[in-house]
């Protein structure tokens, strides 16, 4: 096996593991190709299994012959291993370092993972674009499926199948693709059945400094408007940033060329600014000082909640255009793979009850993130502890999940899934045994043959035994549009993610359990009473029958 040469020491005894809120565990440390395992070899203590790909950074220190490795994980957990013997410690450290930074995707664990569970439904086929389209085609005939990108030639980051206006042919789409960043021509993201308004998304138009235009582009997006209607273009960049983009060949839609559209600029941050924000936030959460003011000022300085507010506000604005103004919208930023997707997917959470169910939310992630070409591989390569500072690393998806959590907190009865579901998705986006979040787009995933060689996350999640952990006991289907508050007083730090390892959740878990018990008991009783009623009715009719003849 090719990993053997990377593992300098496969096994060390008498290693002590320290984790917050748990007693220290002494045991044997084993390194395999994909896992770090610590086992005390006692029945009652849990073993630690850590994926190498979950390791974000490691520090080592020595006190005499005792070495200490501090492992910082992508899920923000920090654990400490005390390893007797300097040489062993150095060997372990360098092995972990090598194994957690493999460059080749095909060496990642999903390619080696063999599921121990029975696959009931293959998740790779759970959310086919054709099926998703059927949900719309029953309501409208104005849209069609296009296979223009079948070979990924028109747009490398788009899936082979996209939904476009029926009146626009593939030839026109090819032309529009040359006018949009990354070939990302406008496609349908969401159809609001209530009033037929739509959300489209795309890359920025390549107007450049001399104001290039593209008739087909104008025709395409106008084709989505009803007669006499106006639409909104929501640019997720500030006007300033959008103007600067022209110098690099990008730009925005000139009102003169798109007279039926009104452009709105919002400013959602991207790339390293978000990454730095995450780093600062996690550092603040790990800070162990006594001073209250320092915590609040660090929380403020991280700007994390500012980003949350900005993204949510833009999504609410988009939803408001659709539902209240009765206007269709086109959303884009620069590439249309990050802030654009945050906004389109959150707008759907607000507008579309289905996306608040487990299955609907999975479909949303499949459609608006995976198929839509959010570059997971690049964005989630590292997390808050790594110093690599690559431009493309950015917690865009985590911010989205955080925004969903904020809405969930404000509407605790309107979601079929609970907080754990969101946390699980965060974990798997950064390190997983499943192939779902590998690659940057469909094209790459096809080349990697993920469907054949790896297991889909949805295959595992959508089994009753797993689903029960992620189901919100408070859920009562709510068919309404839900309008979250974006005021600072209404937004909170997501403790389940950011304080998860820094505070004991014992009492909160107990409360959750109690809540489940209350509801379960109610349901049981309901069933019981129904049976009794039926029995009684039967007996009573029998009684009548016996008496009447």
């Amino acid at each position, binding site marked *: 096996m090719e990993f053997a040469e990377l593992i300098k020491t496969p096994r060390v005894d008498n290693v002590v593991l320290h984790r917050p809120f748990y007693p220290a565990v002494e045991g044997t440390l084993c390194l395999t190709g994909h896992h770090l395992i610590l086992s005390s070899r006692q029945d009652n203590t849990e073993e630690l299994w850590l994926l190498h790909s979950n390791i974000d950074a490691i520090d080592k220190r020595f006190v005499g012959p005792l070495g200490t490795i501090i492992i910082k994980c992508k899920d923000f957990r920090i654990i400490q291993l005390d390893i007797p013997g300097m040489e062993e410690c150095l060997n372990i450290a360098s092995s972990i370092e090598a194994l957690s930074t493999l460059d080749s995707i095909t060496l990642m664990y999903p390619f080696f993972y063999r599921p121990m569970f029975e696959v009931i439904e293959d998740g790779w086929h759970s959310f086919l674009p054709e099926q998703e389209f059927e949900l719309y085609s029953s309501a409208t005939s104005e849209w069609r499926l296009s296979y223009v990108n079948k070979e990924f030639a028109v747009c490398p980051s788009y899936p082979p199948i996209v939904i476009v206006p029926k009146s626009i042919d593939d030839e026109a789409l090819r032309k529009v693709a040359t006018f949009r960043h990354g070939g990302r021509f406008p496609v349908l993201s969401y159809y609001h059945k209530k009033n037929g308004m739509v959300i489209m998304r795309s890359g920025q138009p390549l107007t450049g400094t001399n104001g290039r235009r593209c008739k087909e582009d104008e025709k395409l997006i106008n084709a989505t408007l009803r007669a006499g209607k106006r639409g909104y273009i929501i640019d997720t960049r500030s006007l300033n940033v959008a103007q600067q983009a022209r110098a690099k060949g990008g730009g925005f839609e000139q009102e003169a060329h798109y007279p039926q559209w009104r452009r709105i600029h919002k400013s959602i941050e991207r790339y390293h600014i978000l990454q730095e924000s995450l780093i600062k936030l996690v550092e603040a959460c790990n800070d162990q000082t006594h001073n*209250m003011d320092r915590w*609040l000022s660090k929380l403020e300085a991280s700007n994390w909640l500012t980003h949350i507010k900005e993204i949510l506000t833009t999504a609410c604005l988009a939803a408001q255009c659709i539902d209240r103004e009765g206007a269709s919208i086109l959303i884009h930023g620069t590439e249309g793979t990050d802030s654009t997707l945050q906004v389109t997917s959150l707008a759907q959470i607000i507008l579309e009850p289905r996306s608040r169910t487990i299955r609907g939310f999975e479909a949303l992630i499949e459609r608006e993130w995976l198929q839509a070409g959010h570059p997971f591989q690049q964005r989630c390569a590292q997390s808050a502890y790594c110093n690599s500072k690559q431009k493309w690393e950015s917690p865009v998806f985590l911010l989205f999940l955080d925004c969903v959590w904020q809405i969930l907190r404000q509407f605790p009865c*309107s979601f079929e899934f609970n907080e754990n579901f969101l946390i699980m998705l965060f974990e798997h986006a950064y390190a997983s045994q499943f192939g779902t979040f590998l690659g940057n787009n469909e094209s790459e995933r096809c080349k990697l043959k993920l469907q054949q060689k790896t297991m889909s996350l949805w295959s595992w999640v959508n089994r009753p035994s797993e689903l029960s952990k992620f189901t919100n006991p408070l859920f009562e289907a709510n068919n309404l549009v839900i309008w979250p508050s974006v005021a600072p007083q209404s937004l909170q730090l997501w403790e389940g993610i950011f304080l998860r390892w820094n505070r004991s959740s014992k009492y909160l878990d107990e409360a959750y359990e109690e809540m489940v018990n209350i509801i379960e008991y109610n349901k049981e009783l309901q069933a019981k009473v129904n049976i009794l009623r039926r029995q009684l009715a039967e007996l009573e009719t*029998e009684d009548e029958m016996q008496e009447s003849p």
Partner: protein
Amino acid sequence: MEHIRTPKVENVRLVDRISSKKAALGTLYLTATHVIFVENAPDTRKETWILHSQISTIEKQATAATGCPLLIRCKNFQLLQLIIPQERDCHDVYISLIRLARPVKYEELYCFSFNPKLDKEEREQGWMLIDLSEEYKRMGLPNNFWQLSDVNRDYRVCDSYPTELYVPKSATAHIIVGSSKFRSRRRFPALSYYYRDNHASICRSSQPLSGFSARCLEDEQMLQAIRKANPGSDFIYVVDTRPKLNAMANRAAGKGYENEDNYSNIKFQFIGIENIHVMRNSLQKMLEVCELKSPSMSDFLWGLENSGWLRHIKAIMDAGIFIAKAVSEEGVSVLVHCSDGWDRTAQVCSVASLLLDPHYRTLKGFMVLIEKDWISFGHKFNHRYGNLDGDPKEISPVIDQFIECVWQLMEQFPCAFEFNERFLIHIQHHIYSCQFGNFLCNSQKERQELKIQERTYSLWAHLWKNRADYMNPLFRDDHSQTRGTLRLPTTPCNFLYKFWSGMYNRFEKGLQPRQSVTDYLMAVKEETQQLEEEREALEERLEKIQKVQLNHTKVKAKQSEPSKHSGFSTSDNSTANTPQDYSGNMKSFPSRSPSQGDEDSALILTQDNLKSSDPDLSANSDQESGVEDLSCRSPSGGECAPSEDSGKDRDSDEAVFLTA
């Protein structure tokens, strides 16, 4: 009323501060007890009631083209912005309210005119609901170490203390009186809480008049007596809750703190909670942040930090945690004081008691706790909460802070409290409302002189009567979280202390979560209870019928096997369980629908089971059971039944998103 210059002004507009929706047009009324705004909109005629005693400040702003703006800030954190068309009317309202909001005599307060239509006997029983002598009995007193002292009979020793106090058995009247002469306002060390598991206790007093070198033999004997009352420990902690600098400054005025050298076997400790003036300013600053119109995240967090409010809350909690640990883990008794021993001392003793004893975390126990550490020990409610016109420098949110500490604990221990957030909010409301007599005056003595119990009603009886509204559905008295001492993490956890928007922004319902888990679970539990009763009844009937049938079958032998699926519905019984019209019943519970098409599982909810029971609060239509606010806003309904408020605030959210 002679103070009302104009009882009614028409065409007044009430501005909605959060959203940019159009101001509501209506009529403003001034009555002897309330300011009332009634909207003109014929379908709603929504009413907003403000008690005069709730008014904190009234601000007349510069007249604009649209009229004369009047800003009314309330002590329960409601903020009312009115625009009155005529400057003259505005001035009249302003002058009237200034006077009405600052009564000079107790008799002017609402509780002397408030009549909940109870007869004399009910009122008297109400006052007997909370009985402190019962509470000391519950603690296990009197016993070998502690006895009831009559030294303060007729308030002879200390006029701000109650007449019935527990003191160490070895403390003679001579020692107590001697000690009292060495303490500010004669507030000598007395028992606040006795921890029967290990005999450790929490005692409270005011600061000693030690100056730079004075000492008092009796006071030293008094502390010695407290130590002896706890045979398990050879020392006591003396906790001075003030910052050291403040305590030292007091020495120049002949006051100060205990010198460890003079007292045998004490360990002295400063805690550093700021004084009432710092707290007043801190709250002021925090409320300014809450008032900001569409603040950025940074404005808000920076303002919150700058107010120092959460730092102060944490300081009080830390003091409580220290004492609870000393008592429960070390088994050491603690004497707590600040300057006069009626503000910080009350906060800290009650937080510590709450951590130590599950009883105080029950509905009734919490009333007892406030009765004991706040009301009986002479917390100056009248001065602190400005019930009567007085020195504004005496006003400070001391008990507000304690109530917030309780909320912070409830957030961390969701199953440990029998009551819910609404209970705390209503208590806070009534501390200022002066609707009930409990919180009047500055001491027990004053209350007795005013014959409060004969002339007013008790809040506790009122809350107890409506206890169904205040229950925490997650509380179970056999839960591990419920029992014993609440243990907070030892590592500094600043992030555990959060801004309480449910209190300070509670009138901005749009900022609160739109669905309440507590209300949902309460509805489920209520239904569960009804189901249990139904099950019992059904089982009984079944049994009877089966007995009868058994006799039948014996006679008739087996003629016809009843079909299991005879297709008869349960219609006979379902009359008791008809699904209700929930879309029209958003008021009581919005999100819980007759679940998923299964008609048997319809919820049995009474329309008013979640309605606020509080006459004053529910009159304030926005406040507790707000129609629109609990429901998820559906702007135009869609394929499902529109929520009741649809269309009503069509553009309420727009501005929020657009301006941000």
